[in-house]
């Protein structure tokens, strides 16, 4: 292509370095230093995509990160494609692939554009209205329509092969924005010796200075001064400069998130380089020097390709050496666009006219325009544009005394608009800093600050390079002084500065039916002035409601261009002043940020820790299938010889009930409770009595919350008068320790007790089954294992397989059982010793599934499965675990609350299906009468349900209203397609008298 709109030698691009990329498959040539937008404009391409709702042709509106329209898909290979990349920010490189979005079959002819002609059927609030009725239309009509229409790019489907880095950074002064204000602030702070960081989202520092080469500072051209300033900053060891770095969010206590793009601008990124880096900066002081964003004007046809912001045209001209058209018209309410017109005219663009809505404009401006042969149309309005894929003409009308006169048409291929400037205060708003309307500036300006920050330059309504430099220097010095530095305030001699002012307008007046005008406010979400007025007519009063009803400002640009225009029109419709209506809230991130940057290193195996027991490697070698439990990975079952899960679990269950099984119980939570008041402490924490428990004995402990509901349970062994070995559920360990610490530190600091988490200090091997003693006995030294000497619920310290051990005689299966605790480093050796010793006795390793089944066969609860935070000891059938003589324990008072003693509470019972082969679904709802009308009254749900190998049938546990009074009653479980029948039974299915424990 020819780059017919490039001015040879002009701008900051490297004209000696051509760069070729593709746009919709066609090769486009740009220059090194170009953005996709500037390279396309150099080739006369304005049409970049179709709009979201109406599929209208859209082009480039701005030259920066505020761009709402020119969103493209970029790609550098599989998994490395990105939708909604702003063409104004993406730098070009050889081989870059760029695709337009939201068009089908092609950009020039798009089927969806039919929406545009039927636009009156898609008014504000159409999401809420259209799709409400009839319901049957949803699947076939509305949803496919929305999916087609909501075509803002396509997400890649492959995994992202790139990696993303993150770092912390501490500094004295963080300066956001490297225009004149930011540079001056960084110079003040940097020269003072303060640790200073200057960041800018663009590839190059300089901000407005890059678009104002005619200004002279301290006797140099703006670009010369910029080079000198950057060279000085680079030479200061206490200053860090970061380009392509966006301050995405401003959080509490001067924490600012920065997203630094590292490789997206490179043709060949270094192998292994991170694509982006997220910086978490904690700054002593923050200087916000983010400048201002130009506002579009609101008139019919203001979205046509070729209609763009006047300041953007000036940036494309000066920074990239690109003319945005051959014949331009400027329409404005602010002086700044006049200067854009003059610059374009001097660069050889035919500027047909400057249309200014103001009746009176400075004679200096009009005189200069006339000298350049530009027609001056003050007191005029714009009432329409023509051109299918590119603006071809603009219709202008005089306005006299509020009346719009006859229109005339001016041919043009670029229409440059300026509705004034909005201070960029997004980050300031993140801090909940308040804004105040300044009638003089016609803008919201920063008011009350909540953080240690300064706002400098155009961000607080100051206009012109000189004002920005002076203000930035003061802000930087103030920030440095606040950090204890001695800082001077630099002064700057500025010539040829171009200051000016303007007026704030709503939609421009027209002689045509305003109800038919396509005067866009939010280009990305296709919101028009008419939509805002409709929302107000339909009763929206708050700007937050208007925003959500119309979706104004809710696109990926967060309304950077549209919010103030939307507010002005809403305020007019409401008959109020702008400050009374107020602004919606800006939230992080400032610009769209990749999930990769936010996730950083926390992906794959680094997403969260995987806790492994000392026996984990043995289980893995045996081919165990694992399940995650509270960050642990636990052996779920051990399939042998190609067994499926059902066969493996049935075999494991049989082995425990008939011979002996071994189980890795190391994940059990363990807390050592030590001290003279240890027993008194447990007496207060747990429901059970502990004072008279003898050393060498253990007891089931039940822990409630103060509300009387079950929080945790576990066996607690007394090793000595002042030493208890407390076990908790696997998932509850940290919670229980936190709760114990809370009471000990804050309610009973008088108790002399120490709590230590010992979960990972002990490896635990459970040995369960009739042969358990036979296997264990030869390995134990220093302890008589006979039933008489070491009965059920005994605990002792001894030696097992040569390792120091705490041996518990406990059973979570109903069989004769032992749990051997040894220091974790001996866990695997202990396991292997028991495994070897058990070979002659049919020892079988079992996993968590078998453990769950065996305990359910005994009706032992699993806290968190059979309880859900609303279950009392009485509900769970655990009244026996409450020390009746105890005056107080955590939760005791609540057990007398009226709703807890009331009849009809859900109680835990057993459930046996009529068809013994049917295993109920856990969570299934239970009803008393299956023939009642919908919605049925549900009286409970299934909490645990398994195939019981010992019973030769299914078993279940359930929480059912008044369950213990329903023994023998047949209840119903409605499932898709059928209703199951089951009988209420006691939740103790195997060996209900517990005879197997007494051996």
């Amino acid at each position, binding site marked *: 292509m020819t780059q017919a709109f490039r001015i040879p030698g002009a701008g900051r691009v490297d004209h000696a370095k051509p760069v070729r990329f593709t746009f919709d498959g066609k090769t486009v040539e740009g220059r090194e230093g170009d953005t996709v937008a500037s390279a396309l404009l150099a080739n006369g391409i304005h049409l970049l995509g179709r709009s979201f709702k109406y599929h209208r042709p859209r082009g480039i509106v701005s030259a920066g990160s505020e761009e709402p329209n020119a969103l493209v898909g970029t790609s550098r290979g599989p998994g490395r494609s990105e939708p909604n990349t702003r063409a104004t920010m993406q730098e070009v490189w050889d081989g870059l692939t760029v695709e337009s979005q939201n068009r089908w079959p092609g950009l020039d002819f798009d089927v969806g554009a039919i929406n545009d002609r039927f636009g009156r059927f898609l008014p504000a609030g159409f999401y809420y209205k259209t799709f409400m009725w009839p319901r049957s239309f949803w699947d076939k009509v509305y949803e496919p329509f929305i999916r087609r229409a909501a075509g803002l790019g396509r997400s890649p489907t492959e995994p992202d092969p790139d990696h993303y880095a993150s770092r912390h950074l501490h500094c004295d002064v963080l300066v956001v924005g490297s225009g004149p204000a930011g540079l001056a602030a960084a110079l003040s702070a940097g020269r003072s010796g303060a640790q200073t960081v200057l960041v800018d989202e663009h590839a190059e520092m300089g901000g407005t200075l890059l678009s104002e080469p005619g200004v002279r500072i301290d006797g140099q051209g703006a670009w010369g001064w910029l080079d000198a300033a950057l060279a000085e900053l680079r030479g200061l060891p206490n200053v860090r400069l970061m380009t392509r770095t966006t301050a995405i969010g401003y959080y*509490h206590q001067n924490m600012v998130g920065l997203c630094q793009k590292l490789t997206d601008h490179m043709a060949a990124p270094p192998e292994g380089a991170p694509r982006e880096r997220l910086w978490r900066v904690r700054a002593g002081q923050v200087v916000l020097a983010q400048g201002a964003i130009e506002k579009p004007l609101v008139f019919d046809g203001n979205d046509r390709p070729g209609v763009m912001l006047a300041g953007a045209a000036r940036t494309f001209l000066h920074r990239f050496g690109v003319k945005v058209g051959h014949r331009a018209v400027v329409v404005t309410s602010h002086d700044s666009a006049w200067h854009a017109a003059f610059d374009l005219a001097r660069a050889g663009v035919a500027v047909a006219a400057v249309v200014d809505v103001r009746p009176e404009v400075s004679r200096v401006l009009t005189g200069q325009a006339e000298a350049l042969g530009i027609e001056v149309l003050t007191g005029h309005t714009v009432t329409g544009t023509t051109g299918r894929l590119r603006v071809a003409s603009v219709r202008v009308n005089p306005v006299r005394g509020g009346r719009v006169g006859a229109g005339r048409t001016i041919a043009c291929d670029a229409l440059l608009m300026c509705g004034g400037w909005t201070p960029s205060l997004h980050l300031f708003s993140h801090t909940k800093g308040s804004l105040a309307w300044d009638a003089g500036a016609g803008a919201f300006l920063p008011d009350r600050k909540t953080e240690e920050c300064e706002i400098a330059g155009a961000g607080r309504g100051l206009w012109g390079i000189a004002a920005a430099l002076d203000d930035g220097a003061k802000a930087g010095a103030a920030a440095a002084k606040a950090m204890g530095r001695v800082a001077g305030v630099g002064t700057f001699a500025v010539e040829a500065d171009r200051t000016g002012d303007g007026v704030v307008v709503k939609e421009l007046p027209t002689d045509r039916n305003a109800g038919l005008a396509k005067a866009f406010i939010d280009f990305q979400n296709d919101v028009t002035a008419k939509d805002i007025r409709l929302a107000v007519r339909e009763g929206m009063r708050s700007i937050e409601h208007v925003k959500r009803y119309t979706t104004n400002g809710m696109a990926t640009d967060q309304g950077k261009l549209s919010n103030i225009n939307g507010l002005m029109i809403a305020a007019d419709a409401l008959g109020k002043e702008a400050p009374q209506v107020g602004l919606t809230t800006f939230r992080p991130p400032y610009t769209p940020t990749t999930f990769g940057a936010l996730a950083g290193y926390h992906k794959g195996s680094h997403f969260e820790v995987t806790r492994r027991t000392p026996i984990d490697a043995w289980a893995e070698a045996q081919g165990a299938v694992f399940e995650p439990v509270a960050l642990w990975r636990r052996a779920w079952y051990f399939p042998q010889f190609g067994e499926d899960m059902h066969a493996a679990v049935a075999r494991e269950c049989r082995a425990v009930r008939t011979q002996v099984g071994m189980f890795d119980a190391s994940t059990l939570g363990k807390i050592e409770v030590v001290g003279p008041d240890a027993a008194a402490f447990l007496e207060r924490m747990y429901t059970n009595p502990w004072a008279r428990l003898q050393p060498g004995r253990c007891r089931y402990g039940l822990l409630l919350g103060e509300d009387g509901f079950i929080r945790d349970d576990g066996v607690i062994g007394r090793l000595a008068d002042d030493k208890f070995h407390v076990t908790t559920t696997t998932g509850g360990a940290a919670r229980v320790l936190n709760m114990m610490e*809370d009471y000990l530190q*804050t*309610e009973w600091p008088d108790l002399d007790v120490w709590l230590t988490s010992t979960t990972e200090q002990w490896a635990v091997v459970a040995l369960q089954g009739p042969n358990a003693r036979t296997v264990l006995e030869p390995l134990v030294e220093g302890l008589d294992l006979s039933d008489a000497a070491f009965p059920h619920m005994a605990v002792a310290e001894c030696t097992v397989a040569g390792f120091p051990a705490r041996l518990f005689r406990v059973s979570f299966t109903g069989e004769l059982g032992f749990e051997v605790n040894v220091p974790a480093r001996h866990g695997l050796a202990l396991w292997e010793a028991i495994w070897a010793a058990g070979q002659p006795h049919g020892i079988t390793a079992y996993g968590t599934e078998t453990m769950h089944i065996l305990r359910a066969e005994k009706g032992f609860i699993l806290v968190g499965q059979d309880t859900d935070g609303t279950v009392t000891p009485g509900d769970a059938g655990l009244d026996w675990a409450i020390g009746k003589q105890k005056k*107080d324990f955590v939760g005791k008072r609540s057990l007398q*609350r*009226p709703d807890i003693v009331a009849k009809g509470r859900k109680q835990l019972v057993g459930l046996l299906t009529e068809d013994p082969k049917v295993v109920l679904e856990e969570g299934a709802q239970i009803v008393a009468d299956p023939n009642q009308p919908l919605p049925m009254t549900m009286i409970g749900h299934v909490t645990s349900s398994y195939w019981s190998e010992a019973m030769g049938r299914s078993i279940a546990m359930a929480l059912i209203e008044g369950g213990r009074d329903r023994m023998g009653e047949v209840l119903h479980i409605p499932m898709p397609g059928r209703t199951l029948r089951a009988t209420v039974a006691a939740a103790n299915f195997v060996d209900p008298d517990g005879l197997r424990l007494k051996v």
Partner: protein
Amino acid sequence: MLLIHCPYCDETLPEPEFTYAGEAHVARPADPMALSDEEWRDFLFVRSNPRGTHYERWRHINGCGRFFNAIRDTVTDKFAMTYRAGEPRPNLDALKEAAE
């Protein structure tokens, strides 16, 4: 991310080291069984939930492990001060006056 001063470590540290632990100065009654149902309900469930100054508990869970108290503004999220568990409720207005 807030910075929080642990009154036991006497250090100001980032928020991820701490966990929130509910309203402060809600003491467990010495004899819960002596309370009426209404009084016990209030102890269990009724909290001040103010807009503004809030006395609350935090725990330096990934540090020294101690529970402590704090005064924080629920509108700005900012901490006015932190103090040790068991110390009396500071009078924020008096502190402000003393500071001026």
